[in-house]
């Protein structure tokens, strides 16, 4: 994609995003706020899974850690809510780093299993520390309100706040994946031995990307608290980790823009599925997921490429796969 189309696309997206809080009602705006929150978490997971090829099933645990960090800082220590965002990010970065050091020895499924353990254990841990976390009952957290000098409703303000933070996080990720870290982790993903012969420090690259992914989840967790105003252990079950994983695949592995689409998917599809039939929510959600993978195996971010491929095939009027395009398909691009 040329720089020009990309710039236009980003501008168009920004325009749409800015109009959202002024055309929808408060409940819808709340939903879009959650989309932004999930997008940040999904982006973090995508850095890890998509770009560096490590599978984590426990991203929800860092999301929970960030959320509880923000909730406790706001409710128990009266910290201004904006400061809780970097606090949650830094704490989760540290946690991710510490967790990443032993996890380095593990690859593929083994790492997946260890992170799965983390995601299973965390909600129980939150309940055990009920002196601090209020256990199963959860914590009600006062939500940020629009400052008086802004002509905005609270839900609009909240949305724009999350939008600003999400934009910064997206820009950072884009920058990071174009730079030294991005090249290093992509090299690790595509082959550890070749990467190390090229001078990539495998351990450092993996740990750093794991910690960065965790920090993204932490920031998203803090934003989640702003958006919902309530945390409870039930909010952070395994389902959350799996939803994030589904989102990166639906959105497109190793793409920055895919995170946004994946977030839209995990926020809206379950709600509509339960509107169709409350008893069949799981079945409908699952079927949509399967159908989606069948139609768009590369995720939403792969749509333009898939369209181009189909157009090219039609122009040449044959059904033989275009080897050049196929070749490009197997090679995952940095940014869609």
């Amino acid at each position, binding site marked *: 994609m040329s720089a020009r189309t990309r710039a236009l696309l980003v501008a168009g997206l920004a325009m749409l995003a800015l109009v959202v809080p002024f055309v929808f009602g408060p409940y819808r705006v709340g939903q879009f706020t959650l989309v932004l929150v999930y997008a940040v978490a999904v982006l973090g997971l995508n850095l890890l899974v998509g770009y560096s090829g490590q599978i984590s099933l426990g991203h929800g645990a860092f999301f929970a850690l960030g959320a509880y960090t923000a909730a406790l800082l706001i409710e128990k220590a009266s910290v201004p809510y904006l400061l809780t965002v970097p606090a949650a990010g830094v704490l989760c970065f540290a946690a991710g780093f510490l967790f990443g050091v032993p996890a380095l020895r593990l690859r593929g499924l083994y790492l997946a299993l260890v992170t799965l353990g983390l995601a299973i254990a965390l909600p129980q841990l939150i309940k055990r520390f009920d002196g601090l976390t209020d256990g199963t009952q*959860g914590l009600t957290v006062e939500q940020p309100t629009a400052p008086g000098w802004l*002509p905005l409703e609270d839900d609009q303000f909240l949305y724009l706040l999350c939008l600003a933070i999400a934009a910064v996080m997206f820009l950072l990720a884009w920058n990071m994946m174009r730079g030294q870290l991005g090249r290093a982790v992509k090299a690790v993903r595509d082959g550890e031995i070749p990467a190390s012969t090229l001078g990539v420090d495998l351990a450092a690259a993996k740990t750093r990307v794991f910690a960065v992914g965790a920090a993204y989840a932490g920031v998203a967790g803090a934003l989640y608290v702003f958006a919902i105003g309530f945390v409870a252990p039930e909010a952070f079950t395994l389902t959350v980790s799996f939803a994030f994983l589904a989102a990166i695949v639906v959105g497109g592995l190793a793409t920055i823009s895919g995170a946004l689409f994946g977030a839209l998917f995990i926020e809206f599809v379950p709600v509509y599925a339960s509107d169709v039939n409350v008893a069949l929510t799981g079945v409908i959600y699952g079927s949509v997921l399967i159908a989606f993978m069948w139609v768009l195996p590369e995720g939403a971010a792969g749509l333009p490429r898939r369209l181009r491929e189909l157009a090219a095939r039609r122009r040449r009027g044959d059904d033989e796969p275009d080897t050049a395009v196929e070749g490009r398909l197997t090679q995952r691009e940095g940014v869609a």
Partner: protein
Amino acid sequence: MRLNVRIAWVAVLAAVALALAACGRDDEEGGGDPGIDDDSIKLGGSYPFSGPASAYRSIAVGARAHFKSVNAEGGVDGRKIEFITLDDAYEPPRAVQNARRLIQQEEVFALFNTLGTPNNMAIWDFVNQQEVPHLYVATGASSWGADIEAHPWTTGWQPDYVTESQVYADFLKEEKPQAKVAVLYQNDAFGEDLLNGFRDAVEGTDIEIVAEESYEVTDPTVSSQMSKLASSDADTFLNITTPKFSAQAIAAQAKLGWKVLHILNNVGASKKLVLEPVGLENAQGIVSTSYFMDPEDPQWAEDPAMREYYDAMEKHEPRADPADPFHVYGWAVANTMVRALEGMEEPTREALMDSIRNMEEEIPILLPGIKVQMDSENDTYPIEAMQIMRFQGENWKLQGDVIQAPH
């Protein structure tokens, strides 16, 4: 490239300008409260249609059957009741989302009977900030009547857990004044409310709590807790659990051969959901409490309220099993709601709260002698009486008289 970037910036700035220009989101408040007009009243509730507590979904079904039968007869003062239910899987964060959706998107007149203590705790502040009636919540936490200064829009309905635990304490004082009690409880606000209520009620008596074990609502089983309790020297077992765990506890008790007086809290005392699956032979002699008619008790078979209930269930919810007492619960709470709506002086949320807070009604399907009664600030708990029942043979048998709890 530089030109493109400039174009992009211009576009973004244009968007901001456009957005800010459109800033004044119009509030089309045209007098009167939302969710009510001359033909309809919109009520909304959040229930666990899926997840570990999905047995409670029957409450929504029973309530819907009652509203449908009222609608079939012309509604309340000509207004048909529209009852919107959403699934929260018993997860508080989803209840928060549902409450937002019901109030801001569906624009309901009132939230009715949203289920679960933690779920209602999660939406308590928000709903009161929005000044939307938050009525007859399906939980027995004592909080709902304890803090009406800060939460004037919220009310409970069923006897609260403190009332219930007082009734058990009264029963034990009569039946077993030296009881040594082992307690299994759900580790959340519901379990603690009942346990603390019981502890307060037996203070200063010879009844003693000798063992306590808790479980999480997400736990797969309570068998290890039951083994520990059975190895204590207790002669009475107080079972504070939700249906899935009530059944597990009864099964474990039978398997361990632990023969003690078993007091099972009201939420777990469903014959269909709890006792039948574990075998009625294991349920003999269990003691519990009730405040509404058991649909399977032959004593009420000819009662007009029970017959109306059976007819309406068959007509409006033919796929539901009318013998499930949760359906009766839903029916009774919906019946109370209809009385409250009938008592409104004008179609506003304020008037609805007035009607609810000053009510004295006998709801036909509640046990004879039990009333729904509130008196503005003096009495903020709607139902405060219960009757002891004991499982014998095929059914629960009511014992003694209705016990009015001293609140």
